[in-house]
Structure formats: C-alpha cells, structure tokens
C-alpha cells in the first residue's frame, strides 16, 4: 500500500498504542531519462510487437511428438493438427511445448541470478545496497537490458534485485498460462515464449553484472590474457579439481583457498561449461578442460581427483560414473544434489574424512566451505594415486572389447550423430584405430550407445583409449571473458554498424551438440573475423573454437584482437554474459542514435531489427536455456542460426521472401508504407552444414537501413561466401539490390548484366544505372519503422 501526502502538516493526534512501521522507502528515482511507455511489461504489453514479428516470421512447427499426455483426459492424438480433449490443436500444443522449454531456460538463468545475489551477500558479508553497480569509467549504460525492460538504471545490486523480482513474477504468470485450459492459439503461446525470452535476457544481465561487481571480474577491458583450454591442459602431476556447471561462487572459494594457502603449484583447477568460464574471470590460473560436449569423456578419462558440481548441464548420471572411478563428488547447489547427504553444517575436516573414506560424495550448500573441502580432498587423493593418469582400459581390454563387438548396429541407431561405431570397432579389431580416433571429436559422449550395447562394451572408454594421444595433446588458448561492451567502443562502431560498413556482428554462442565435431566453431569465427565482421562469443562454442590453430599455430584468440570492432573476436564470458551482446545492440540505439532506451522495448527492438546487422549462431544448441536465449534475441530483433540438431526445438521463425505483405514497413520520413527486401529474412532457422550456415549468416546481416556503401560491402561478402561454399551466386542476391550503388564495385558490370539477362531488369548502360527492377529504390533519408506509434508520436530520443 502506498500513502501519498501533499503539502501541509502530518499530525497524528490523540493516538495511543499505535505503531507506525516504515518498510521500504521508495525514493524518487533520478530522472536519468524520461520514462518510456512500457516499464516492467506484463504478458500482454508487448503483444502487438510480437504479433508483428509472428506475422512476418511465421512460426514453423516440426512437432517432436504428435500426442499430448499432460492431463488425465488424454493421451490425445493430435496428428494432422487434430484437436485433443481439451480442445488444443497440434500447432498450439507445439507452441505450448516451446513455451514450456523457454520457461525452463529462463528459470535456469533467473534462478541462477537469484542464487547469485544470495551468495554474494553471504560471501562478501555486504548488503546488496552496499555493492555499487560500477563497470568503470567507460561504461555509463551499465545495464542496458534492465534499463530497457524495467526502466531501472541500477546503482547498486539492490536495484538489480528489484528488477529480478519483476522477472520472477512474470515467469510464474507465463507458466500459469501453460496449464490445461488456458491459451488456445499458437500465436499467443509464441508471444509468451518471446516474453520469456526477453525475461531470460534480463535474468542473465542481472546475474552477470552482479558477479562482475561483487567479485571483481573484468569490466569490459580488451586485450584480455589467454587462458588454457583443452583436455590436455590439466597438470596430471598435481591434485586436480574438476568443476562442472553454471554457478561460480563456490568455485571462487576454491580459488581463494588455493591462493591463500599458496597451493598453486600443487593444485590444478579446471572446469567444464560456464562455471569454468566464470572462474577464469576471477582466477587466471584456472583452466578450461572442455565444453559441454566432452563432459562424459572428461569424467570417464578420470581427469579429476575430486569433482565439484553446481547447477545446469551436469550429467544426471554423474554419480553412476564417478562411483565406478572412485572420484568423490561435491554438490554445491540445491538444484542438483543427486541424493547425496547434506553435510553443510558439518566441520570441513569431518566432510574431508567422509569423502576420503570412499563415500561417493556429499552436498555442501555453503560456498564458503567448499574451497577447503575440495582442495584438501584433491590433495589427499593425489597422494594416493600415481604421478600420471592413463587411459582407463588396458591394451588387452581394448582389444578384447573390439573383438566382442558383433557389429549389430544398435549403437548407430541409438547414436544422435549416427556414428558407425561398429565399423570403427571392426577396424580397431584389425589394428586400425584411426576411425575411432577420428570419430572421437564427432561423438558428443551422450552414452546412449552403451545403454543399448548387448555386449556391454564401454564405448566411451574405447574412444578415449583410441584418442588418448589427442586427449593429452589437446591444448588451446582462449581469451579470458571480458564482460560488457564499453560505451566508448559503441561510440566508435555505432555508425559503421548502422550504416553497414562493418558488415555485421556475428554472435557465436551456445552449446556443443554439433553435427560434425568442434572444428566448425573455429571455422565460423575465423571466416567472419577475417572479413572484418565483429565476432562476439560466449559459452561452450567459445571454448571449442579455441582448440584449433591456423598454419602459423595461432588460435582465433591469438590471431584477432578482442576489441568490439571489425575483425575482432571478443570472448564475453559464460552463458549469462550473452546479455552483453543484447546490451551492445541496445547501446547502439542509445549512444549512436540517441534513442531513449528507458522502458522503451518495442521501439528499440524495432530499431535493432531495421538497423543493427547482427546474427547469432548456436551451432550446437541443445538445452532449454539455448531455446530461451535465442527467443530473447529474436524478440529484440536479432536473428539466430542453429545447427541441424536445433531443428528439434520444434519451432522456427521463418520469413517468406516472396510474400509482399510480410515485408511492408513505414518510412517515418514520409509516413508511407514501403515494400522492403527480406532483411533479415528469418529470425530462427536451422542449417545442416556450415557450408550452408556461413552464407546464410552473412545474408541475415542485411538490414533495410543499410547505406549503399554498407549494402555493397554486405553484398560482397554474401556473394563471395556463396561462391565459396555453394559454388554459385546466391539465388536471391538481386532482392537486396536497391540501386547500382549497392553493387560491389569490382563486379558492377558483371552484376548489372546478370540483372538484365536473368532477372529482366532495365539497365541504362550509358550511365550504368538501374532504371527498373528493384523491389524499392534507395533513399538516404529512408527511416524504417514497424511501429505506427512512432509515426504518430515520433521516436523517443534523449
């Protein structure tokens, strides 16, 4: 309840036994910018924007399942878009499942943010209000997503907590809507999924800014040091601690313990997934052992004296494997406790003894206790084992298993990659291990093959044995995650991005469920960085790219700078650091175009969709988090390409380039509607190979606002990449030509000729000008928007 008092005296007279409690004191927020139209939007607030997107980028459904079994009236057969007992049809049901997937993803990031704030208070001993949101002198726009979505410009972590409460409330509201008997339209489910995607981006920003400010991670500085990456980087002569997950605070305590006790020469700290990325932002000596796709390979290789897990993307069967290997597991997060006893309240020495007594593991929910226990258990176990670690199998066992394989094919049928494991086993039996070695990288170590092998062959161990040389020599280099993009960088690149002279921002993100091994991550980054795109990267894909080197022995992180500028490869951080990629796009609108970003989501998303040539690629996306991440990018007007496994997300957002009415935008200059080129053509699309994905990503960087110079540069790359990977000019290059000035200069005549011959355009050859043909002409003052409101009220600027 809020009581407001006007002028005059506030008198409490003749009242006895009255207590007045003052709860939260709401201070008038500093007017850092006028409040925009949509502070803390609810489910329906941005529905018009969503429906605009959903009309142009019609949801495409590829149901993984044609039935619904969520209520007791079912199971219902929804084949052929039939309706089930509750009335829902297959399209809406698939939209509902997508919404559920996004709700899981956003909950993971937002739950992580909440946990982060709790841990920060506990570990620093400070209140959130005592920790300033300070990202250094070059970052004034500290939290672009928080500002855009909630209208709050956070000064302390307490302000972030207010924004977090909003996100949590909204998530509950959307999850409510997936109950039976709520939405009946796939469009409204998709709008809700987009809402969750936006909240996901907010949760990530809160989590990452909080950890940067509380734990002193880098604040966007470039020229970050190089971190060691790969299964071969762990020093097996030391005590090895392996951490897995997405919540760094307990691991920071391990780093503290190592440093405070001078144990750097005795203890090696390595990790898998985002905790690994974040701990290197705190402790430079930490190493990254692998991305997600190698998790089971690392565990089964026994590259740990103790394993510490926190939350997300941890193998559900981790205990099954570690028990066999005798590696104790410490669970540090209530979201993943694996039925182990909670020893949080025990003295560390008792926990250490318990773990050294051969017990499989325990739960320690106080991050401040984790360091001592993990390090001392690892040191003690190191003393018990030999100096090195070799493959789990002996030569005799390897050959015995190879001979045992009957090539029944069950494993191939079970393998998500369809690897012909039997053929490789047969070759191994005959003395040729090269097939196993070669496939080791393509295998994502899911372990499904072992589940169906009638002979009980430990197939992962077979792969690890055959590839042991690769494993111990796998040593790459990765830039340490630098965090946000600085305002000063945006000032330099804002104009080139919007005008198109920097051809695009390529965001290489996501997990390791690749179709064809890890090398694709390197190829994508190298291809675009070498063409002066800005490559930004986070998460597992950032790690995998670091494993490869060019002819001069350099990784992409050594070959390219890490400034947010053309030709850069910028490692931002873990999954939650993805928020800074959204943030960079928002800051372009704020800093370059002076648009008001405060609580002004629709207008800024419209700006980004029309002007900021950015495209994400999540080549190995596998998780529900990746679903909500991509959906968040999409609502903000940023398209994403996923690998072929990404088609299993069931839904894509695909445009129809031939459908005129989908591509009408307003020109704010004239108020007229204009048919634009299909730019960007899709918001979410799967590609099967990188040969297909790379030209597609270049195409998805086209924006209607490109200047002729910018369009010419983008077209050059689109054509070049199509010639390189598809062997021929792209089918649709002419759609992106508005005027002869859009054409790449070196090929102008040749292209004019093709426009005339193949597409029937009229060319004035004397002037070398296009007379007739393009979808639209070019006008330097073209000011595209999809929002009628902006025509009426103008854009909000500051």
């Amino acid at each position, binding site marked *: 309840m809020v009581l407001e008092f006007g002028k005059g005296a506030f008198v409490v007279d003749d009242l006895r036994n009255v207590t007045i409690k003052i709860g939260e004191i709401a201070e008038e927020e500093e007017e850092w910018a006028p409040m925009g139209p949509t502070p803390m939007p609810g489910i329906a607030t941005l529905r018009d924007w969503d429906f605009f997107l959903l009309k142009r980028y019609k949801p495409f459904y590829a149901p993984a399942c044609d039935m619904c079994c969520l209520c007791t009236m079912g199971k219902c*057969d929804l084949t052929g*878009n039939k309706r089930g007992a509750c009335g829902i049809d297959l399209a809406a049901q698939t939209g509902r499942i997508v919404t559920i997937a996004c709700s899981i993803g956003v909950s993971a990031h937002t739950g992580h943010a909440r946990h982060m704030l709790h841990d920060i208070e506990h570990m620093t001993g400070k209140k959130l209000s005592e920790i300033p949101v300070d990202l250094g002198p070059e970052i004034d726009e500290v939290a672009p997503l928080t500002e855009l979505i909630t209208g709050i410009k956070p000064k302390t972590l307490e302000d972030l907590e207010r924004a977090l409460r909003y996100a949590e409330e909204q998530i509950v509201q959307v999850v409510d809507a997936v109950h039976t008997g709520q939405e009946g339209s796939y469009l409204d489910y998709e709008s809700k999924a987009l809402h969750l995607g936006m909240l996901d981006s907010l949760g990530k920003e809160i989590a990452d800014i909080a950890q940067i400010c509380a734990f002193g991670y880098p604040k966007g500085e470039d020229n970050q040091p190089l971190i060691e990456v790969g299964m071969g980087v762990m020093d097996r002569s030391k005590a090895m601690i392996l951490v897995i997950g997405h919540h760094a605070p307990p691991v920071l305590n391990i780093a503290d313990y190592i440093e405070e006790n001078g144990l750097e020469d005795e203890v090696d700290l390595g990790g898998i997934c985002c905790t690994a990325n974040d701990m290197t932002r705190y402790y430079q000596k930490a190493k990254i052992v692998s991305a997600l796709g190698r998790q089971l390979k690392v565990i089964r290789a026994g590259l740990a004296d103790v394993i510490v897990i926190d939350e997300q993307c941890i193998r559900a069967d981790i205990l099954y494997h570690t028990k066999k290997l005798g590696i104790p597991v410490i669970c540090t997060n209530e979201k993943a406790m694996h039925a182990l006893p909670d020893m949080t309240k025990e003295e560390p020495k008792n926990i250490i003894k318990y773990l050294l007594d051969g017990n499989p593991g325990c739960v320690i929910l106080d991050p401040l206790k984790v360091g001592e226990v993990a390090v001392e258990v690892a040191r003690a176990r190191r003393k018990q084992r030999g100096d090195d670690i070799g493959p789990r199998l002996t030569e005799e066992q390897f050959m015995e298993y190879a001979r045992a394989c009957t*090539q029944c094919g069950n494993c191939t*049928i079970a393998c998500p990659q369809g690897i012909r494991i039997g053929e490789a086993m047969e070759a191994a039996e005959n003395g040729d291990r090269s097939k196993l070695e070669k496939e080791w990288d393509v295998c994502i170590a899911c372990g499904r093959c072992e589940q169906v092998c009638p002979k009980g062959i430990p197939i992962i161990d077979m792969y690890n044995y055959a590839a042991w040389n690769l494993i111990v020599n796998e040593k790459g280099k990765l830039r340490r995650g630098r965090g946000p993009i600085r305002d000063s960088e945006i000032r330099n690149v804002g104009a080139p991005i919007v005008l198109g002279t920097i051809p695009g921002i390529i965001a290489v993100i996501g997990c390791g469920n690749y179709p064809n091994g890890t090398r694709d991550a390197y190829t994508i980054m190298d291809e675009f960085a070498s063409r002066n795109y800005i490559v930004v990267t986070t998460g597992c894909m950032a790690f995998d790219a670091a494993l490869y080197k060019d002819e001069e022995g350099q990784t992409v992180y050594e070959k390219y700078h890490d400034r947010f500028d053309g030709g850069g490869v910028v490692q931002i951080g873990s999954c939650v650091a993805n928020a800074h990629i959204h943030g960079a796009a928002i800051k372009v609108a704020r800093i370059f175009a002076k648009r008001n970003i405060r609580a002004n989501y629709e207008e800024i998303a419209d700006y980004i969709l029309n002007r900021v040539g950015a495209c994400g690629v999540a080549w190995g996306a596998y998780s529900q988090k990746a679903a909500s991440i991509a959906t968040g990018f999409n609502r903000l007007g940023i398209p994403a390409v996923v690998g072929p496994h990404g088609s*299993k997300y069931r839904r894509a957002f695909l445009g129809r380039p031939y459908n005129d009415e989908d591509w009408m935008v307003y020109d704010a200059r004239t108020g007229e509607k204009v048919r634009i080129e299909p730019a960007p053509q899709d918001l979410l699309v*799967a*590609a*099967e*190979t990188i040969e297909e994905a790379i030209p597609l990503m270049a195409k998805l960087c086209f924006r209607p606002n490109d200047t002729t110079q910018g369009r010419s540069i983008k077209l050059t790359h689109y054509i070049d990449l199509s010639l390189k990977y598809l062997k021929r000019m792209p*089918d649709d290059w002419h759609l992106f030509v508005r005027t002869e000035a859009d054409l790449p200069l070196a090929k102008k005549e040749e292209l004019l000729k093709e426009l005339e011959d193949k597409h029937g355009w009229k060319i004035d050859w004397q002037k070398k000008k296009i007379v007739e043909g393009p979808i639209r002409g070019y006008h330097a003052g073209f000011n595209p928007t999809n929002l009628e409101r902006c025509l009426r009220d103008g854009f909000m600027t500051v």
Partner: protein
Amino acid sequence: MMEMAVAKEEKFPTAKRFDIADIQVSREATAVKPKVVANMIKRAKRPLLVTGGQLLKDEKLVEFAVKFAEKGIPIAATAGSSKPLIERGIKPVSKTYTLHQITQFLQDEEFQGFDGNGNYDTVIFLGFLPYYLSRMLSSLKHFSKITTIAIDEFYQPHAKFSFTNLTKDRELYYSMLQEVLDNL
C-alpha cells in the same frame, strides 16, 4: 497400398526407425520398394528432389542426384550440396535456401515453386542428416498434403513413403537408388 509395401520375405531389411525413441501415434511411413518410388515420381505432376549435406561426404549420392536431374527431376540443393552438383553441370532450381526454409515454403499457400509455376505435389529427399530430415518430414506430415518420399538409407517414419532401413548394407541401398532411376 499394401502391395506397395516391403514384404518380410523380400530382400529388404525391416523398416526400423533410426531413432528408436521417435515413437508416434500416427501411422508410420510405408516402407516401399524402388519400383514403387519410381512409379510415384512418374505419376507426380510437380515432383521435386531436395538434396542435403550428405552429398558433400558421399560421391555416390552426387552421382545419383545427377542422374535424377538427367531424368528431368528438378533439384533444390541445400546444405552446400549445390557445389558438387554444379561441378557436374547440374543447375539446381534452388541452392540458397535451407531444408528448413524449403519445408516452410512447401507448406505455404502463397508459394508458387522455385520456377513460379506452382507448388510441388511430390517431394523426394536425398542425402540428409536423418534427425534433421525427420523433423521436417514431421512438419509436412502434420501441416501439408504433400507426398513425401525419403530415399536415404534410413527409414524415415514421418515420410509418407520411405526406403526401409539400409544402414547395414550400403551396396543394397545404392542398388535401390539405381533401380528407382532405371524405372523412371
């Protein structure tokens, strides 16, 4: 329909889903013999062959796709499969769009084909990662009336018609592709 299906006593292996967990309520694809595939293509008013990324790994598939083109079947090449086809003198009707995009187009009432002469009634798929094709076939099954024919070595349950599972006998698979072509 039954006589079209592969019978147990014939030389073909049984139709086995490549993904054992891909169980559906709906009818699974009829596993068909090569001659049946050829007949359906011949009967089609607007057939289209869509080729995928496996052509970059398997020369034989390229050779078969070339032969389909020589028989007059238009090819929409995806995933970079245009490269080996163009190198052999084939002109795909599409080389830029992905399988995902093409599947969307096929379901769209506004789509008039890559040549502007109308949508396709029978679409044949060759050379795809099975799980990716599976999802697209599921989409076409639920949201279109197009006849889909999968002629990869994997049995594709969501197609209307599919080769049976031939993963254990690649020579048999190639001979089946040849038999389709011989009967076109």
